[in-house]
């Protein structure tokens, strides 16, 4: 009881609480006002289908098995499809992508009515969300820590 007498222990809390009347609320009227995400905020993933070479590294690294390689009409190789209900937005697929075909945006509002709508096919994944600046997340020098070759990369998760 560091140097506080009984009376102040009883009375001070009341006035400390009362003082908060003048504080501004910290909450926001969410659907009406939205907070902007930060540059690095990890959100929906966008696929640049032109750059994708179908190597499947993203599907291999994904810790949640959220990525599967799917065939796309008019393309010779498979492209990633993401089940966003499984995705934990860790960004490992974006980081491992050798061609920088996968990019992360800071769009975090993904709620849908149905499970199926959250399974993004490669075509749906390549539609950029309605946002001016898509931010390639965490631009920094890639060091060979998790390159597929060193970690015993195999193609076992890739569907034919």
């Amino acid at each position, binding site marked *: *009881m*560091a140097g*506080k007498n*009984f009376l*102040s*222990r*009883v009375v*001070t*809390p009341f006035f*400390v*609480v009362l003082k*908060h009347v003048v504080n501004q609320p*910290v*909450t926001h009227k969410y659907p009406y006002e939205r907070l902007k*995400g*930060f*540059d*690095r*905020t*990890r959100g929906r993933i966008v696929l640049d289908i032109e750059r994708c070479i179908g190597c499947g590294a993203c599907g291999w*690294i*994904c*810790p*949640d098995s959220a990525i599967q390689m799917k065939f796309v009409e008019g393309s010779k190789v498979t492209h990633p499809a993401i089940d966003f209900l499984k995705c*934990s*937005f*860790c*960004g*490992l697929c974006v*980081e491992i992508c050798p061609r920088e075909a996968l990019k992360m945006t800071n769009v975090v509002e993904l709620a849908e009515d149905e499970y199926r709508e959250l399974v993004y096919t490669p075509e749906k994944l390549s539609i950029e969300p309605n946002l001016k600046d898509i931010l390639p*997340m*965490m631009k*920094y020098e890639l*060091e*060979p*820590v*998790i390159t597929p070759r*060193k*970690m*015993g990369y195999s193609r076992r998760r890739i569907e034919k």
Partner: protein
Amino acid sequence: MKDMLPYRYHPFNEIVELEGGLFQVNMGPQHPISGQGRFIVITDGEIVYKIEMDIGYSHRGIEKILENRSFIQGIIPLERMVMLDTSNIVMGYVMAVEKLYGVEPPPRAQYIRTIIMEFNRIISHLYALGLFAESAGWNPAIFLWTTADREPVLDILEMITGARWSYSFFIPGGVRADLPNGVKERILTTLDYLENRVRVYEDAWIYNETFRMRTEGVGVLPRSKAIEWGAAGPNLRVSGVPYDTRKNEPYAAYGELDFKIVTHTAGDSYRRGWARVEEIKVSIDIIRQAIENMPEGRIRVALPPKPVEEEVLTRVESARGEINFYVYTEGRDRPYRVKISPASFRNFYVIEMLPTIQTIRFADVPPIIYSFDPWFLDADR
């Protein structure tokens, strides 16, 4: 004798009358205070006869999951173990992997890790304080204040790592990204703000006569019992055991920073809450020092192709106390066995044993339990 008494174990009945006029009161899993678990409280009127923690409602088998994922993949599910305190948890595993591979991350990475871990400790302690106040019968004022004060910290963490809770930021060999521009100023202003708010908590909460009445001398954990039962974290330190992994076995940048550890000898619920407020102050101090002494350089080193060690036991001071990882690997890129011993798992045992050494009233059960800051997700794994 007390804890050997046989009683009928009714998992789903609300309250069951037992022999000798004892009641079984189930606090949870649907109870305002319980969380993702259940406290089975056997009472004799208002006097508590026995507490038993029923955990496992959110057991996800993290240890098994880690066995089936490579080291880097394992970090992401491991974070889900305690969402409040992810970086401290992950640090133990990352450190184990680094020791297995025999690499030492660059100092800048260690400082960035320290900053993030201390911020994480702050938000975890703030949440714990809110829950403690709520369990002692506050209307949710303190809880909402702490929740509000976590926001600026979460913003900083989001700025640095890209997420509010599951950072996925520490990887074996370093961290995933350097500090972004402009974050230092923001960190410093936030620390000033937090210091002011801590003073508010002290005035409104710690130095509150009603709170003192409720918690002083309640749930006393003596030093010998704290060691014998294996208490962890601030709960151990206020019982007179000055053990803090950050100090005793320095990891990350803690060895180079100067800070004190919060200890006391009373070991009651009041001091356990007080210790968390004091630890927030210590964390603020540590972050200030880390920002000042931040070295330049790389943030990551590459891992060698194969692990050099076979097994390792790492200990890390998470917000709830020491968490240790025993990792055994057969020389592959994934562990063969991971044993996680989280702090809450040990603290739950301490809570169960408390009624054997003192009289506890029914109304004191929630404050005692929340003074230990247990987290069912932590204990369940």
